[in-house]
């Protein structure tokens, strides 16, 4: 099951494609001024590890972008177990070794788009969630997968301050969870996942806004009902269950038409946001669905 997705975002692949893309834009912009071209702002080189580790949303450790980097060192990731329950053949408390042992860890360079209209490119290391689901055995009645983040009140300042309800929960439809793009990631740049990035294991769903990619997972539940999702519970008008990246559905707080790549400095330009964050291969999952209503 692993290696079902070909990584088109290696640095080797990207450069020629980028040149080609730019050339096409130059043609499209012929006659228009050259100044307005996004050009290099669209480059898809991964962000530096330092960017990835210092600009995070992880409300358990505070609401500021720099808070997780400062506070997440308190997270206790020793003896990590993940409870797998619900509509599965082999429920139980799994250690990471039990859950992932023997599966192929791949490097996947994905665009990562936050609902706050910023983005990064992250070289994840992880396994396909589908492989893990096969290992625990999904019953045929299951339709959704629910996830839960660890709560360690003594170690988590945001939990003490109750900035949002905890534990943080998220969910995917089973076909989304089984899509080859969907990862359980355990590292970045070949290094173990930093706590602020969701150590020791987190979800990565690159065609959805970042908050869907739940961090520090302690529970995976297979269910036949659409599971709760934290931001949707807080404000259903602003955050839908699907939360697919969609430049055409404006959010009450942020226009989603464009985004800013992190790492471009004080004069970074904006770039257009792509439907499904550029992962068109997932479009068929939503055939016949109105994505403006199911946002």
């Amino acid at each position, binding site marked *: 099951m692993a290696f079902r997705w070909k990584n088109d975002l290696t640095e080797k692949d990207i450069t020629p494609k980028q040149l080609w893309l730019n050339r096409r834009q130059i043609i499209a912009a012929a006659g228009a001024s050259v100044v307005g071209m996004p050009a290099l702002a669209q480059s898809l080189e991964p962000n530096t590890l330092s960017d990835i580790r210092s600009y995070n949303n992880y409300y358990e450790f505070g609401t500021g*972008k720099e808070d997780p980097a400062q506070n997440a060192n308190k997270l206790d990731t020793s003896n990590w177990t993940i409870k797998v329950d619900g509509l599965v053949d082999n429920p139980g408390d799994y250690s990471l070794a039990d859950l992932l042992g023997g599966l192929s860890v791949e490097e996947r360079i994905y665009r990562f788009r936050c609902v706050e209209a910023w983005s990064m490119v992250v070289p994840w290391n992880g396994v396909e969630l589908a492989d893990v689901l096969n290992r625990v055995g999904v019953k045929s009645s299951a339709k959704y997968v629910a996830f839960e983040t660890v709560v360690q009140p003594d170690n988590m300042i945001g939990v003490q301050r109750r900035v949002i309800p905890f534990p943080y929960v998220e969910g995917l439809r089973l076909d989304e969870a089984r899509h080859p793009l969907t990862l359980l990631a355990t590292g970045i740049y070949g290094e173990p996942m930093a706590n602020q990035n969701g150590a020791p294991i987190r979800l990565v769903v690159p065609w959805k806004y970042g908050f869907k990619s739940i961090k520090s997972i302690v529970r995976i539940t297979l269910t036949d009902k659409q599971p709760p999702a934290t931001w949707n519970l807080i404000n259903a008008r602003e955050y839908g269950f699907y939360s697919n990246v969609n430049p055409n559905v404006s959010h009450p707080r942020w226009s989603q038409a464009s985004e800013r790549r*992190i790492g471009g400095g004080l004069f970074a330009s904006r770039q257009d946001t792509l439907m499904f964050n550029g992962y068109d291969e997932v479009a068929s999952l939503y055939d016949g669905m109105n994505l403006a209503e199911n946002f």
Partner: protein
Amino acid sequence: MIIDRINRAARKIPAWPVYIVGSLWAGWLFWLGLTGGLGPEPINTLEREYGSTALQLLVAGLCITPLRRYAGLNLIKYRRALGVTAFFFVLAHLTIWIVLDVQSLSRVWEDILKRPYVTIGMASFVLLVPLAITSNNISVRRMGAQWRSLHKLTYPAVLMGSVHFIWLVKGWPIEPFVYFGAIVVLFAVRLDVIQRMSRG
């Protein structure tokens, strides 16, 4: 007593250094943003730094009268400098937002109309403009009593600035509510003063 000592010192220290310190602080933050000192996303960080400094200065300005009234601390001569500096930080906040953050005038307009937290921030700014323009001796002299009524706009402007802050955060962080609470308390104190004056 410490109050007397501060009052005596205040008589000697002029107000103009407030402008100098304000400009240096704004410039220093910008420099940090240019050189990586504000983290990997300096635009939003700088925007927020300027916004918070503006709000802090406005709240500081609101404290001056109650401090004199209840603590005998006379810092009135710094009030205008605090207000005008606050206005410059709001202006910097707005400029960063338009030029570096949104980068498109049509989207600026769209955001002002569509996003309530921006609408109320802009409303606050609009109220602050006439106050900044009339913050000079000539206006004070020419306008007389009108000047005092006009400058009561400070209250709705600051309140809207703090509501803007509450509106833009997600979840329930403490900070914006601390500002809001402080402003409400300062208002209450002010109303109390007015009532007592009208009774007495």
